[in-house]
């Protein structure tokens, strides 16, 4: 597409053709956004903004956008603060693939990791007045799937761009 006029720019050599047959880009192919950041809130927020810009650009509805924004904040805080303890020498890796229909976000830190099963239920009566422990619950409630691997250092979250039925 739009390549026919390229002859006039090039040197006209026939072997030029080899160089300019790029990989075929289909409508479904999504280039992932990749980030590698030190563990501080400034970089954390920059990554969140960039991913949310892409979510908006891809046309996610307001419910799905709200869900991603909330889960992304919680997952990033988990990595930067609870995992890497805001240590600037420790890295957080983020990869986000946002298509018009689905958002896949992977976040990995260098912290000690954690065991999902050992996290107490924050909705239990005896835990309701405790100030922490709700981030994971919110991630799992708002995303379609949340999976931890690598000893809890890596989380993959998936959210489809659709109206949730559980609200209202």
């Amino acid at each position, binding site marked *: 597409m739009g390549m026919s006029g390229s002859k006039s720019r090039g040197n006209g050599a026939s072997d030029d053709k080899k160089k300019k047959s790029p990989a075929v880009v289909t409508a479904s192919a999504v280039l992932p956004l990749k980030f590698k950041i030190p563990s501080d*809130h400034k970089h954390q*927020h920059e990554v969140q903004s960039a991913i949310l810009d892409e979510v908006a650009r891809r046309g996610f509805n307001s*419910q799905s956008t*709200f869900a991603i*924004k*909330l889960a992304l*904040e*919680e997952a990033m*805080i988990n990595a930067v603060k609870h995992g890497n303890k805001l240590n600037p020498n420790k890295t957080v890796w983020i990869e986000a693939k946002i298509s018009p229909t689905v958002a896949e976000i992977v976040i990995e830190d260098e912290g000690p990791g954690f065991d999902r099963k050992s996290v107490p239920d*924050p*909705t239990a009566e005896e835990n*309701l*007045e*405790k*100030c*922490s*422990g*709700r*981030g994971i*619950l*919110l991630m799992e*409630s708002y995303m379609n799937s949340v999976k931890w691997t690598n000893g809890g250092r890596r989380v993959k979250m998936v959210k489809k761009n659709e109206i949730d039925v559980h*609200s*209202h």
Partner: protein
Amino acid sequence: MPESTPTVALTTEKDVRIVEFTNSKILDEGNIADIGSTLGSLIDEKAAPKLLLDFATVEHLSSAALGMLINVNNRIKQKNGQLRLANIKPQIFEVFVITKLNKLFRILPNRAEALASFNQL
């Protein structure tokens, strides 16, 4: 951050301190700490503090914000005070339902009903 815009606006109605959030996102850690310390000083003001938090402008919050609100609730209870939450948008209210914090907090539909719900001691 002395010259940044304040995170809450304060008014008083009889003996009730009304706190309105001026930022649509109660997400940012610094922001949350700021709000927490403002609310803390309001709690310290009186023997049995009455606080009404108006969520009309709030479009987003996080678990850290919920933690701050629980801390505020605990401190008010310790002083035999009363806390009410009002004007919470449906999307935000759902966060309270998922975390079951709608059982912990007294949440009223609007400011008038919240004001009327305070017990006269």
